[in-house]
């Protein structure tokens, strides 16, 4: 399990670098970037249960907040919640195939966006236009990328998944 934690931390760090570094601005389409930290959060919840999902989401979200202008916790809380929820369904309920992954990431991103917007309204400054400008485009982008990323993560965590009996 230590191996899983270390690899997850590595993936979260690399994802944060990709999202934060300006040389990766080319991945921005229609003004939005994919949320790679969020995708690994959902993957961890989906594959290894609520605990792993929420810890990845919380840790990744705090990193995200630390390099963003967002107040600490605004990006961490939605990721934590979705990581927890993804773990409640998991591979035993939602079978792993491309359609399921795309749909799951799309719905999860919409949910994350709604939670972020809600928190922004309460604690910061919310704009309803972000549903059209941010949430929906990001959901499409995350959903399109997710099968490829899930495939890569499946390869990385192959040993662990075999032990859990998923592969």
């Amino acid at each position, binding site marked *: 399990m230590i191996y899983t934690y270390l690899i997850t931390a590595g993936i979260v760090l690399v994802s944060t670098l990709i999202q934060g570094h300006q040389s990766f601005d080319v991945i921005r389409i229609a003004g939005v970037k994919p949320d790679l930290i969020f995708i690994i959060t959902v993957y961890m919840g989906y594959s290894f249960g609520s605990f792993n999902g929420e810890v990845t989401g919380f840790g990744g979200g*705090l*990193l995200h907040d*630390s390099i963003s202008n967002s*107040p600490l916790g605004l990006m961490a*809380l939605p990721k934590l919640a979705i990581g927890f929820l993804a773990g409640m369904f998991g591979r035993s309920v939602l079978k792993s195939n491309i359609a399921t992954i795309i749909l799951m990431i799309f719905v999860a991103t919409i949910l994350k966006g709604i939670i972020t917007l809600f928190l922004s309204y309460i604690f910061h400054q919310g704009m309803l*236009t972000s549903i059209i400008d941010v949430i929906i485009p990001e959901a499409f982008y995350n959903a399109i990328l997710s099968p490829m990323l899930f495939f890569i993560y499946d390869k990385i965590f192959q040993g662990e998944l075999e032990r859990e009996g998923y592969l």
Partner: protein
Amino acid sequence: MEFLIRHKSIVTFIFCTLFCIISLSVQGSGFTLTFEGIISGIFSPFQKGYNAMQGGTSRFWAGFSELDRVRDDLKLTRAKLETYEGLDEDLNEIRNENLRLRSLLGMKERLRYESIPAFVISKDPDNWFRTVIINRGSNDGITVNMPVVAYQGETKAVIGKIVEVRGSLSRIQPVISPDVRIGVKVGESKYPGLLTGYAFNSNLCKVDYITRAAQIKFGDPIVTSGQAGVFPPGFVIGTVVKTELPESSPYQKIIVRPVIDYNLIEEVFIIKKNPDKDLFELFEEMQ
């Protein structure tokens, strides 16, 4: 203890949720900033390390691939330099005339500010908040609320202000962020207004509270008013691209395209000017 272990996912969820809610509630307090600072401090070496590696590789590669381009640029620069040398004499004459006229009119000499160059090492990691992190911090004498400018070609324009400073890193809040508030003047008649970012993932700004009677046209410049004490007056921000006259509002709204393309910002200059304390405090109170 057994209960905690058995229900560790729910316990962790509740604990982390509480942490986030408390942190969001006390945002801006020392506690939040200190904690965020610790995380940022741990993570910043990775960012800087990656930046150094990427910069080094780019420079190494440029040594081979861009030699011809550099040679051409050198020729062009020399030609420009000759032109500018010719202009120097004219410029001195205009400067002296300007000084003489200013003294005749009894105007104070315009303040010149020292500026520090910096490189962008990170930009917004998400689609909600606009962030620019640069490689200069308190070690270089940078403090919060210093204005930041950049050049696009030969045009200098405001891109934001410093909102957070660490040892060798600072965070900029760009003018396109919906969180920013800058007092501006619009057009040749200098109608006053308040500039903010247009939307979370837009590269445009908007100016509110412009009187309906103001005659504003496409391309009119937007400059800082200097009224909040952060930005010096007369710094260019952008140009008008659209005006809106909502029937329900006593004001008109202007959509502004910043002079500096946010996606192209690589090098910035921090103006070493601390906010005018009284003005700044008054503005903060009003907000």
